[in-house]
């Protein structure tokens, strides 16, 4: 495989960049695979990569309805963090942080992981205590966390509202300094390129229309490009989970909702950290291009439309200005929506199913992007070994039956309230 490096970049410049290899091929589906991963998003691509890399399973196909990286991996706000209170989430995400830190080198693709830190603002002592509970839990799990007072926050983000004319004054915040952002598309493309190199077939424009299940065992899938036999099938389709579950006669503790995000026009660097508002639901960071990347609440009703409505964005931006009044003078450039697989306790599911050889990876809510490497790694393990890894043991499907819920927000089953 052609190595990406400054040396090769210069070399290719002199041949007018005519000699770059394909990042990934575009093969016809084969008749049979050891593992078929449905969904060419970040998690699916990562799963295929780790199946090949960690488990030496390379007779693998990724089946993608559209184009790879076109789902939530390409439609998020690029935040990477492990600032969770519950052990299951914290340990899983921190494992992922390690993978993030070396991802550019592992994939030989610059995913621009940038540990610029995330600050969750608090606007009351009560909220400081809630964050303390979370931050202490993080620290006891070996995750970095710092509790900032008002002055410390002001030093990092002086442009936030520290004036008298503020509805919810900033008391302080919880910071995870090692959290940050990465270039979302690069993650998908980087995994795809390496997976392809190790023999994984990336099959785009191929829609799954059914499953071949007999005697409680999966035998293959039916697609718009013909039937494909498979010993094992992994579902990695985020917002389309409910649709495929129906084809399997399963109902899952998942609802499909729309989350919008938007960016401002690009401006010169003004905000270094990722910041979340504590008196509402709003988060912001500034991209390398200079755009302020902003997001917040769900649109609030089940939706498969990758288009949202303005009141939600108005609400989100209202909180944005409440937190950082200077945003008022910027302009909203682009908005988009992502289809979220909202689970009933806000945490994901990576598990086997009642069908032999069928594996489930879903329920990421709006936290899927940061989980990409850990999700791929553990899902690959679960598929390869036919048993869950201790990192994803808590993400079982039957926790809803047993009551071992992992509810970071304590909001329960009203998935549309965020």
């Amino acid at each position: 495989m052609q190595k990406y490096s400054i040396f090769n970049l210069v070399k290719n410049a002199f041949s007018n960049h005519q000699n770059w290899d394909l990042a990934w091929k575009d093969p016809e589906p084969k008749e049979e695979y050891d593992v078929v991963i449905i969904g060419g998003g970040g998690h699916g691509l990562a799963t295929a990569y780790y199946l090949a890399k960690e488990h030496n399973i390379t007779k693998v196909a990724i089946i993608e309805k559209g184009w790879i990286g076109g789902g939530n991996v390409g439609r998020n706000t690029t935040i990477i963090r492990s600032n969770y209170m519950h052990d299951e989430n914290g340990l899983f995400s921190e494992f992922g942080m390690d993978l993030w830190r070396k991802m550019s080198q592992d994939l030989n693709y610059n995913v621009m992981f940038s540990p610029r830190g995330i600050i969750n603002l608090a606007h009351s002592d009560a909220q400081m205590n809630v964050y303390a509970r979370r931050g202490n839990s993080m620290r006891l799990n070996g995750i970095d966390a710092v509790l900032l007072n008002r002055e410390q926050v002001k030093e990092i983000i002086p442009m936030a509202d520290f004036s008298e004319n503020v509805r919810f004054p900033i008391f302080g915040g919880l910071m995870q300094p090692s959290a940050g952002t990465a270039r979302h598309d690069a993650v998908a493309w980087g995994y795809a390129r390496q997976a392809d190199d190790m023999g994984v077939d990336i099959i785009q424009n191929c829609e799954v229309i059914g499953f071949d299940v007999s005697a409680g065992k999966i035998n293959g899938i039916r697609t718009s490009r013909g039937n494909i036999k498979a010993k094992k099938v992994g579902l990695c389709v985020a917002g389309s989970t409910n649709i495929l579950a129906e084809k399997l006669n399963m109902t899952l503790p998942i609802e499909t909702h729309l989350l919008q995000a938007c960016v401002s026009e690009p401006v010169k660097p003004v905000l270094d950290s990722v910041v979340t508002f504590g008196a509402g639901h709003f988060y912001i960071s500034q991209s390398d291009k200079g755009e302020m990347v902003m997001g917040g609440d769900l649109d609030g009703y089940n939706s498969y439309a990758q288009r949202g409505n303005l009141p939600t964005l108005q609400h989100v931006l209202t909180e944005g200005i409440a937190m950082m009044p200077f945003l008022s003078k910027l302009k909203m450039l682009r908005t988009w929506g992502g289809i979220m697989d909202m689970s009933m306790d806000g945490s994901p599911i990576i598990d086997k199913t009642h069908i032999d050889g069928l594996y489930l990876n879903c329920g990421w809510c709006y936290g899927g992007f940061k989980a990409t490497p850990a999700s791929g790694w553990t899902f690959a393990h679960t598929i390869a070994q036919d048993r869950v890894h201790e990192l994803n043991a808590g993400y079982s499907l039957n926790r809803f039956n047993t009551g071992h819920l992992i509810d970071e927000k304590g909001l329960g089953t009203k998935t549309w309230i965020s």
Partner: protein
Amino acid sequence: MSQDFRLESVGLVNRDKKLSFKFNGKKYFGYEGDTLASALLANGVHLVGRSFKYHRPRGFFGAGVDEPYAIVQLYRNNETEPNIKATEQELFEGLEAKSVNCWPSVNFDIGAINNFLKIFLPAGFYYKTFMWPKSFWYRIYEPFIRKAAGLGVASTKHDKERYEHKYEYCDLLIAGSGPSGLSSAYAAAKNGAKVILAEDKPRFGGSLLTDDVNIGNQSGKDWAEGIVAELKTMPNVVVKNRSQIFGYYDHNMLVMSEKVSDHLPKTKKYHPNKRLWYIRAKEVLISSGSIERPIVFGNNDTPGVMLSSAAKEYLKVYGVLVGKNPLIFTNNDSGYETAIEFQKHGVQPTVLDSRKNPESEIIDEAKSLGINIKNSYVVVAAQGYKKVKSADVASISDDKKQLGKIENIKCDCICVSGFWTPSIHLASQSGNKTKFKEEIDAFVPGISKQQETTLGAANGVFSLEETLQTSFAKGGELSKKITDNDNKVSIPNVVEKKSSKHDKFWCVPLPAGKNYKRFLDFQNDVAVSDIEIALREGYRSIEHVKRYTTLGMATDQGKTSNLNGLQLVSEIENKVVPAVGHTTFRPPYTPISIGAIVGREVGKHSKPTRKSPMHAWHEKNNAVFVDAGVWLRPRYYKRGNENLFEGSKREAKNVRTNVGVCDVTTLGKIDIKGPDAAELLNRVYTNAWLKLPVGKARYGVMLREDGIVMDDGTTTRISENHYHMTTTTAQAANVLSHLEYYLQLVWPELNVNVVSATEQWAGAAIAGPKSRVVLQKLFPNLDVSNEGLPFMGYMEGDLFGVKARIFRISFSGELAYEVNVESDYGNFMWEKIMEVGEEYEIQPYGTEALSTLRIEMGHVAGSELDGRTIPYDNSLEGLVSKKKDFIGKRSLQRSAFTAKDRQKIVGVVPLDKKTSIPEGSHLVKDDKAPLPNPKLGHISASCWSVEYDNPFSLAILKDGKNMIGEKLFAMSPLKNKVIPVEIVSSHYVDPKGERVRS
């Protein structure tokens, strides 16, 4: 200073009003009615900024919203705003603007070194490098890249401007005031329909302002003025200029941003800067026109290269020549129209037409005027760095693959026309699946998804006559459906010149041995070679191409680049355009002020503030307030130099020893009436309610269906079929909806009504051993003895003439009462309580003391009922009925909920009896264990016990009850604290509950 490029008495600017302005520190003059762009061009200024990536010099390309690179930093009224399009910004007296993305100046920009490195910086180069050494990305490379990117500078000052919102309903909303917009608006208005006509530019008329046409025996411009004038007199019509409809949302909701003050030096008093209109329209007519397409050639980003329609607009609207030696490069007749205008105004252009033998009325006219025309000729490359000085031109073969001999001709601007792209953005936003129209090589709207119709050039119709006919007809037809009027208006006759077919040609091949950059996306510096690389590397989906190269992702959102990009991909991939990509647009059409989107809900008003009727009293008495949701509650009443700890301790102590009074108005209150009220409560709460007598209160806990505690509170039976429920402050609205849900949907057979009474009642809790005497003083005629009003009893009374409800309930664990009066009398009640309580040393207490009192009593509150706990966790099992069913009961059977070592609430005391345990600490067995250190539980609430004068905390602890007596560590690594603690009962004070019953 004379304006070298301004024609005398041509155009629509107001020559009587001269305006001075500054650009990059230099003073210039323009006229009222100019844009910053036209005023700069009038002064011969073409260099405006530097491009995003290569920092190449950039000038003006368009004359409006499609402008890709004339972007400036604006200074107005001591404020600054980044990324203003000079082509949209109207000139005002004293305007100041500066170039962006260049340092130290636009003339000499260090970043332009990138232009020499450009062969090393192809699309996606950053994905291939900057990876070594590992730590360098964040520390070295990224900061450098970030600094280089980003266009203008955001001011971090608070925005002083005001933005308003307006909600409107109308029959027809018409986007765009060109020929189709005006005709359809006129026809609809004549039928009495409520019409809103929106134009994003300051002037109405669209293409009629610049096109040489004749309607109803007057010039197009005069006809437009007449129509607009008449529309403005009609009461059923709203005509708005400077108003951009930028979003087409669900159910025919459109949003429009009106620039009210941007064209003024300063916003007028009581005026908004912008006004955002939410418009719900029965029918939407999209007459947003079309945008000229560029033709791609070498160095086509050099200042002086611009759209031919823009050159015409600068001439006809502003009286400005964009050059005195223009070269027109066209693949259709539009270029000739521009050439004719130049010629008419004494400037001799040269026309290069890629077509071999085009024939039409327009071309005939050009020929008859003696314009120099070269057929089968193209511009190969512009020459000149900061301004076009000449052009390399050549003949081109019929198959457009072979260039003839390169010649260089002198020129000072190159006006390009690559035919027209309909503005289908709004139609696409509405859900319309657009289709590709071969004849015009562009997408047009397909089948309507909502009530929308696209007319005129936006629909790919470029004949004025046809546009007027269909637009008058459509406006009439749609309005007739709504108003039932059928007032026919006669369609005026039209004189326009017929044009010939355009050439399917948008990209000039590179001459042998040359490696000119041929730009598609000017702002993001995406060139033909970038698209080629993306495709070569397998980024073949158009979405991959866009993301890999950033084509169309700049602030102009690809208005002049998207289609050329698609065309190029289709040629390289040998596919037809619609097979390459289907264009779907999302709002906003053009970048929209965030301030305008947010409106008035800023600063203190970003969320409502709720205050109790006693708020003024609290303020007067030095209350320090705390936010409780949107409520403001006194946290403590500061005396002298007291801090929170000292003040709240004093208040809590006073409750334990004397008597205190606390404002509990914020608690949710729900009035429940009906014969089945008891049955409802019995199903909602976990405990039994059927036998509660009249005049008695009971504490209850309600669950969500998943078994998690939703809320707690007391409910009192006021009379036979009338109950008064209290909820926590935070859950008040949710609980009401919850009850309504079950009553309306699940158990409609229950005859019960519920209504919120939170605002109707003001509440005061009087607590402490002396509370009974205070109550007696308030109600001298009532028997409030322990027998007359026992614990959990209720009675009504007369508080100095005011009807009051008296509940003997206690959150503090002391003998306590809660008095409610109608809100209007809240302050009266409060003052009376303070007055009669004075001799018993009554003190008001705030939420902090309230918290202390409940914690040492082991009463649970929000920090324990955190959406994750079940009744057992909170030692509330006594309240969970085994006999009856209730909401959420079935969930309590889950194995994790019934586990033997399930978490439970306990008390925690530091071994040294001195060190307060920070809330949010975790309990561990071994403070030195390696990480991750297993956590057994967490500290949910902490206080300084006023009873025992030492710290006390509540914790939710695994295997809680069995842990009493154990020694653990409370750890708060965030605060660097490790505190050895002992686990005790959560009922730290008065465990038998004798005080409340005393």
